[in-house]
């Protein structure tokens, strides 16, 4: 049962009146009773807990704690293939609106991004926190911000899905000992295409070098980036190669200032774990580093490109149950093998 709070101004003082099953009016001795809701004293047509700004670029710390609504069309474009946690999505369907709370961690990241010198290497932000503290939601918020500011979005809604519930896996034909996830790669490309459909038409986004998929299929230099995406979607065999090519191109294009890229990966620590459910043709279980789809996404989080940002979250749930490390701190989850140069941490520890 959700109680709606109604904002009521009394003689300059503000009192919150909780309306649950019946209206409770607090009588003040100094001021005559007024009827609810009163809109003459305040200019905000919405209840105080809602923010007028629905655009993340305009969110500031005075909006902290307020809810803002995401337009259904934007939600469809950004989050059709994942990005909003399932339970929250169900709530959104129930209330017929996608309403997110504006919280400090997201505001912090957006602040940094606004003041970043994009000539420098892409800064990496790592969200950490206990289960349920709002990492995925923060990422969704920042994703929306990136979308508004015309960043090319590279978004992995929940990386462990690839390793825990792979749709199909097969031995990689080109690389020895590696395993492909062709259908998952295609699914991701479709997701990418959906999120960036408005940018892929930009003539600036053209391929910087030739990409040869096979003897007959080549994507020439200067072709639109969309061609690589289409190639990957249509030709399942080359989907992972297309992802690699795509991400490399994005890095180069960002460096050349032809676009800006935001990389958002949830459950990043799975890339550095020891196990997956994926098996080679010889039924040998393999670690993520032997899966072809891992390397492009780990590569894009490196620091060798500029004009972008990388937001990554680490979560204990990303690991398999048995491997869970019972820590919510990044170093514990990422493990000692991960190079940690200039990881910048943003901390969502406030439980929603």
């Amino acid at each position, binding site marked *: 049962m959700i109680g709606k709070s109604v904002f009521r101004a009394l003689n300059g003082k503000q009192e919150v009146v909780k309306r649950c099953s019946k209206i409770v009016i607090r009588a003040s001795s100094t001021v005559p009773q007024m009827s609810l809701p009163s809109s003459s004293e305040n200019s905000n047509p919405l209840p105080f807990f809602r923010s007028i700004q629905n655009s993340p670029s305009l969110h500031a710390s005075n909006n902290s704690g307020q809810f803002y609504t995401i337009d259904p069309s934007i939600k469809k474009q950004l989050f059709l293939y994942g990005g909003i946690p399932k339970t929250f999505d169900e709530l959104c369907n129930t209330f017929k609106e996608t309403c997110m709370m504006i919280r400090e961690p997201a505001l*912090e990241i957006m*602040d*940094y991004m*606004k*003041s*970043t*010198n994009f*000539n*420098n*290497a892409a*800064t990496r932000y790592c969200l950490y926190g206990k289960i349920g503290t709002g990492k995925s939601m923060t990422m969704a918020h920042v994703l929306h911000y990136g979308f508004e500011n015309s960043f090319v979005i590279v978004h992995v809604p929940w990386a462990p899905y690839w390793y825990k519930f792979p749709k199909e896996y097969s031995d990689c034909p080109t690389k020895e000992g590696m395993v492909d996830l062709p259908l998952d790669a295609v699914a991701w490309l479709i997701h990418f295409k959906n999120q960036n459909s408005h940018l892929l038409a930009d003539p600036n986004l053209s391929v910087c070098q030739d990409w040869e998929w096979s003897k007959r299929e080549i994507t020439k230099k200067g072709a639109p980036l969309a061609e690589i995406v289409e190639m990957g979607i249509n030709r399942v065999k080359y989907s992972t190669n297309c992802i690699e090519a795509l991400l490399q191109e994005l890095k180069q294009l960002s460096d050349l200032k032809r676009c800006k890229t935001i990389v958002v990966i949830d459950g990043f620590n799975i890339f550095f774990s020891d196990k997956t459910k994926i098996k080679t043709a010889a039924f040998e279980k393999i670690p993520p580093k032997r899966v072809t789809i891992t390397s492009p996404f780990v590569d894009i989080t490196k*620091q060798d490109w*500029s004009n972008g940002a990388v937001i990554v979250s680490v979560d204990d749930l990303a690991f398999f149950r048995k491997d869970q490390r019972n*820590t919510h*701190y*990044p*170093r*514990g989850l990422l493990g*000692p*093998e991960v*190079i*940690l*140069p*200039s*990881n*910048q*941490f*943003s*901390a969502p520890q406030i439980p929603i």
Partner: protein
Amino acid sequence: MMCNSRYRLLRIVAKYSTDASNTEFRVLDLRKGSGESAMQGRGRFQKRTEGGPQLLPPRETRMPIDQDWPSVWPGPRTFHPASVPLPVRQGYPAKDLAAPPGKYANAELMKIPNFLHLTPAAVQRHCQAIKRFCTPWPSKLTNEDACDKYFPVQTTTCDYLHSSPSIRDPLARIVTLQVKLSSLPLEGRTRDKFLRLVQERYNPETDMVTIVVDRCPTRKQNLDYSHFLLTVLYHESMKEESWEREKSPLDNELFEWQTSASRAAIDSLAVKQKLDPDYIQHYSEALTNLMNKGEDQETLADYKERALRLLGHSRN
């Protein structure tokens, strides 16, 4: 019955006057039944006198305070309550709230060793007696540190005496050798290797390496072996094997900034964008702290702040 006749004898023999002034000559009265005419003709089962045979008052009540105790108790002896002028109590009472049992007829007190023969006065006398056989204390050994400096190696052995057909004890062969690690010239790699060789024999709190040797049958052999062990440990630590260079950063006990991948990454980053060397220094300290001390709110917050400063980010 035997006990009865013995008892009667005791009663007869032990009939003394229980005068307060005990210096008076005690009159021996061997007359049968004197003072106990009521008891005569009772037969075998004579009634016991109340409180048992009348004994002398215990010696402890007559001991002067300034007596020479080492003369009273010259050597190790089973506890004798009447000779010890102390109200000692020992053991658990039968009832919870009662006091522990007293010293008379206290088997517990008699079982345990007592050191009444080693009072300070007695010890002083022993020392005085032995002094003429001793050499003077070395003048340079004025304090504990000096002793550690000149005699860093401590050897401990234990002697056992048995009053049985054999005076031998197999435990007497055990030798314990203790050395402070700081007295050995080891550092860095050599110290690490030494500690890995020695493992749990090292106590970091006291900085002592303790080696217990008991594998040889005689003490002398064990002593020699312990000296040998110490020598070997030291020399092995000083040697460097080729496979030691295979130690990877993952094997390191502590995070080292200089050799870390993080440093390499920052260096490559510094090529492309301007990074203040001071900030790099701060960042490296924070990262080292984070890795070595462990993650918690404090170290992470510190790291975050310094990383932000390094990368030139600020909150508006």
